[in-house]
């Protein structure tokens, strides 16, 4: 792989890939390729070493057991921490979002997270299942967030992060805010997958990764129709 190639890593698809999160990698790779950016994707299984030199890291949703195991292995491996320290961009979804925090709950016990986001997660009274919608932090300059959430956890944000969005439908972190961001790390509960429903977030990750202020626009006719339909559906629910 050359220095001019954009490298995208999907973290532990063998443990965390329950909700179509592979889609986030496919969409990033395609949106890069359509702009002529050479791109390589890597699916790193939990029995492999985590490379520290990729540009974008993706981690997805999963069940309690695999979530706890993934956190242990990522802490022991250290590659992801080095990558983040070197400025890699990250999209962490659902169980993957929780494990980026200081701690999370899995299988009835508190587990240590990667401590890469100033968040901690515990159990909610009820499971949050359904359409989620929110107004994204204006500093990111993105249109509203849409996704499908399915989680039992509630996430509490510390002063070291900002909410990714203010919830206008659904639950997100706690019924008020959804997701978190700090530096080039984005966390969200949104499946759909997230980048299929929110191509602007995909482009933000690409801009962060290649250090560009803007990217050539793409024909997002179908994504826009999907967004319009889902944003309206969340409002009606």
């Amino acid at each position, binding site marked *: 792989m050359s220095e001019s190639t954009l490298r995208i890593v999907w973290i532990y698809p*063998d*443990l965390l*890939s*329950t*909700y*179509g*999160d*592979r*889609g986030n990698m*496919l*969409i990033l790779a*395609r949106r890069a390729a359509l702009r002529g950016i050479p791109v390589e994707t890597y699916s790193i*299984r939990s*029995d492999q070493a985590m490379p520290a030199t990729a540009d974008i890291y993706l981690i997805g949703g999963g*069940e309690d*057991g*695999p979530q706890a*195991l993934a956190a242990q292995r990522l802490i022991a491996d250290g590659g992801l921490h080095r990558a983040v320290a070197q400025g890699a961009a990250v999209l962490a979804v659902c169980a993957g979002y929780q494990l980026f925090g200081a701690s999370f709950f899995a299988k009835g016990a508190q587990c240590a997270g990667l401590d890469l986001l100033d968040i901690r997660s515990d159990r909610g009274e009820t499971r949050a*299942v*359904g359409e989620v919608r929110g107004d994204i932090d204006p500093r990111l300059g993105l249109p509203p967030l849409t996704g*499908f959430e*399915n989680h039992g956890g509630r996430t509490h944000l510390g002063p070291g992060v900002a909410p990714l969005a203010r919830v206008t439908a659904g639950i997100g972190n706690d019924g008020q805010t959804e997701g978190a961001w700090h530096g080039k790390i984005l966390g969200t509960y949104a*499946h*759909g*997958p997230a980048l*299929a429903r929110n191509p602007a977030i995909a482009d933000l990750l690409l801009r962060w990764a290649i250090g560009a202020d803007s990217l050539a626009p793409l024909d997002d006719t*179908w*994504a826009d*129709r*999907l967004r319009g*339909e889902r944003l309206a559906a969340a409002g009606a629910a």
Partner: protein
Amino acid sequence: MSVSGTLVAVTDGKLPLRAKVATSVSRTAAALSRAAGRGDGSVIGGWIGLKIDPDLLRNLAAGRAIALVSGTNGKTTTTRFAAAALGVLGPVATNSFGANMPTGHTSALAKAGATPFAVLEVDEHYLARVIEETHPRVVALLNLSRDQLDRAKEVAMMAQMWRTALAAHPDVHVVANADDPMVVWSAVNTGQVTWFSAGQRWTDDSWVCPECGSPINRAQGDWWCTGCPLRRPQAQWTVEDDGVLDPRGDWHLVKLQLPGHVNLGNAATALAVAAEFGVRPIEAVPRLASVASVAGRYAQVDRDGRNIRLLLAKNPASWLEAFDMAEVAPTLLSINARDPDGFDTSWLYDVDFSPLRGRPVLITGDRAYDLAVRLEVNEVPFRHVKTFDEAIRATPPGRLEVIANYTAFQDIRAELDRVN
């Protein structure tokens, strides 16, 4: 091993009074439901019957020799095949409309009256309860994979439920898929197992050993755990070319009306089930060939010069099978996300749609836009149509393959006048 002669025939006269009343009410309700056009009556009758007599299923099952068929995919078709094969021995009760929960089983048995045999399709969540209530002779386990992400239990948890249920009933003979590690793990400790091999296209739910958590390795149809002794057992029934190899080493040509390699696997499973009741493959095979469609699935309908074939695909594993079955012809995909489908469409990204490249693809359904975005990423050109009629008009005369998920399939079936 033929058992039909030793069976005590079930008759309504031997049912307890409460069960008799419940059976009669159940049949009446089912007939009324059909007459009122509220469905095929396969659930409502059982629901009312069980309200009157909670033991009705147990009572109706007593004295029959029963096979249960469960798994994520293929259970409706395999049930139909197994019922056809057991028909060699005598009348067989079966829930042929796919009503696969206890109310559906109750309705099916009540409606069939006294039959020496029954073959029942069982929703995988209900297998433990239905084993408990029907005391089956044989349980067939087909496969376990992700289905309805926002509601269903995870695959490993389902395998654990099966394992516990089977361990409690060592007298049940299990017919199980050697190619699916989750199925093997759920069945491997039970008393009597016949293994079949039908291949497994979908492997994304069994990368990790359910016994020890180590990675599972695969090569040339074989699989083994890298951390414990769990590995693929030797199969007694195997799909080979366009036929099935039986435990004696005899190969039987299996000519089916239903398409695809997956249905050959379902046929092999049905032959293995029937063999447990004493039916020889040579007797059963011609009966499998008589099955033309299953609750509308695989049905072919001629409309305006188009030969329309309906394929149901409910989850990632069955989408892959549908692409294998479909001819290279114009193909309509339809996706809904209503209650029976599951509300989350993320699974679309678990399916590789690239086999559709090179075919004219049309999309429709409540969630056509999700499909549109997915196909764009997958570089599959498509055209969006708003109705089924528009799809027909957009297609040249000849074959039109229709692949749809559950409620989308029912919608299209209704448009085609509830084809069977």
